[in-house]
């Protein structure tokens, strides 16, 4: 359980996060989405105490991350996968992390097997591919068998097989009752993986919603109808809250305010022949961009922050 209360983070003049409040629940995968530079990585850095919020609080299981006696047991984090000394082997990197908590060497071997890096475990990580870095980062996150996972773009750089593996892994971790908080800028990937979504744009919380609700909202209310009797159908559908427009040819109508079922019933009752009756689905990607664009327009220049992920500034 991650609890973010009024978190604001300024880097000099730039406002990376502005009064963000939400919580992340255990037992489900929570997707954290927003365009690049929205503040996703900044928020994740606040969760594990790498940066301190300018105001507000961020707690994990009831207390600030740094106040936990065994932080790796509370939160496993993957922030920047390639942020590992290139001269060290995967085993040495994980062993050094494990030793801080007195975690047994055998656990290091366990997590190496979980992520499938056994064959390269003793190789210098400087030779790793991006996908291998991601796997090593996930191994590090799992090391302490944590109740909460915070993963920044974990499927970045993975091949399709790896992306499927991540998806299965995250769902499995959530099914065990863990809190899984995972960022992505691929809305379609999140729609498959996540149960809940936190959407941010320009440092502002835009949506805190279930994926099902988001998909429902994303589905446009428009029904596309093709009929040789367009004018009679237009009359038959006329009602408050219903608008009928033409699109393309004279025989194509775009109906909003009614479901495909309602349009079909009206046509049937009036014995109007239909050639086509299609509920038009906006893609999640479109809905997401629409939503974040609105937020940007709404904010205008007030936030005025183009700040990219904080890692870029170092």
């Amino acid at each position, binding site marked *: 359980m991650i609890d973010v209360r009024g978190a604001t983070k300024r880097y000099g003049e730039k406002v990376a996060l502005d009064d963000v409040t939400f919580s992340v629940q255990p037992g489900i995968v929570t997707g954290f989405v927003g365009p690049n530079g929205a503040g996703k990585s900044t928020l994740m*850095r606040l969760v*594990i*105490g*790498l*940066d*301190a919020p300018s105001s507000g609080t961020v707690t994990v299981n009831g207390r600030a*991350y*740094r106040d*936990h*006696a*065994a*932080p*790796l*047991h509370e939160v496993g*984090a993957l*922030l*920047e996968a390639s*942020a*590992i*000394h*290139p*001269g*060290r*082997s995967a085993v*040495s*990197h994980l*062993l*050094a992390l*494990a*030793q*801080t*908590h*007195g*975690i*047994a060497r*055998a*656990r290091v*071997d*366990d997590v190496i*097997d*979980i992520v*499938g*890096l*056994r*064959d*390269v475990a003793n190789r210098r990580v400087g030779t790793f591919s991006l996908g*291998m870095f991601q796997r090593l980062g996930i191994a*590090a996150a*799992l*090391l*302490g*068998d944590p109740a909460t996972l915070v993963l920044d773009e974990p499927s970045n750089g993975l091949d399709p*097989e790896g992306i499927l*593996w991540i998806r*299965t*892994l995250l769902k499995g*971790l959530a099914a*065990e009752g863990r809190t899984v908080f995972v960022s992505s800028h691929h809305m379609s990937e999140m729609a498959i993986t996540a149960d809940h979504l936190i959407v941010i744009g320009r440092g502002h919380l835009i949506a805190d919603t279930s994926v099902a609700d988001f998909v429902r909202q994303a589905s446009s209310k428009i029904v596309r109808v093709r009929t040789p009797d367009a004018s009679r159908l237009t009359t038959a559908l006329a009602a408050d809250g219903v608008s009928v427009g033409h699109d393309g040819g004279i025989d194509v109508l775009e109906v909003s305010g009614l479901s495909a079922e309602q349009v079909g019933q009206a046509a049937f009752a009036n014995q109007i022949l239909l050639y086509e009756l299609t509920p038009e689905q906006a893609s999640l990607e479109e809905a997401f961009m629409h939503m974040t664009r609105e937020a940007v327009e709404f904010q205008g220049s007030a936030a005025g922050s183009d700040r990219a992920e*904080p890692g870029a500034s*170092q």
Partner: protein
Amino acid sequence: MSTTGVPAFSAAHPATGRVTQLGVVRSEWTKLWSLRSTRWTLLVAVIAMAGIGIIISAVQMSHWSQMSAGDRASFNPVDVSLGGWNLAQLAIGVLGVLVISGEYSTGSILSTFAAVPRRLPVLWGKAGVFAVVTFCLMLPSAFVAFFASQAILTDHHVQTSLGAPNVARAVIGAALFLAVIGLLGLALGALVRNTAGGIAAFAGLMYVLPGLNALLPASWGNAISPYLPLSAGSAIMAIRPDPSSLSPWAGFAVFCGYTAVLGALAAYLLIRRDT
């Protein structure tokens, strides 16, 4: 890489434990020795400390017959044998900077601080491990340099012994001085968080300040000189009393003081700054 099968997250071995200073020390020990660059740099320091004095002793003996009476009179068998510290200090100081600046430049400081979010145990762990490793490598190196050199210096009967006044203090002091030099590098690396900047700061304090001091009016320069880091710290290796420098232990204490102040500042900023 195998990617199939149901992942067993909480596999056979439980991951229980908590952050302890001892655990962080073990972690830092692993980090220090798991890098090839660290092992090479320490090897260079050992070879320099143990070997250079031997070479200089051999050179001195081969030229002894051509040396002036004055040179022979001022010949210092301890200085000659411990001459390797001049190179060892550079290797140790730079490695001290790298022990922490390397974590910032590679980004591994993120994992380090995620594991130990209170951060200070990391600084103490690095300092403890690096100082002890340096001392434990430099002490035998200094003794090897001393005994081998004295054996060579018997050619012209100008050798000394460990039992002679101040000699044991100078030999052990060389190892102590080098260990604190490592800590000074570490403190500077933690302050600057950048390898090039840390090494520049180290070189500036140790080697540039004396040059600048020499440009000051003589009365100022002579007053300041004993307190410069290098001359203060190296006083611990002096055999003959030198009126232009601090006494051996006072000088060493001043050098430790500088290091402690920089270390305290680094510790303060470590917990205050964002990563």
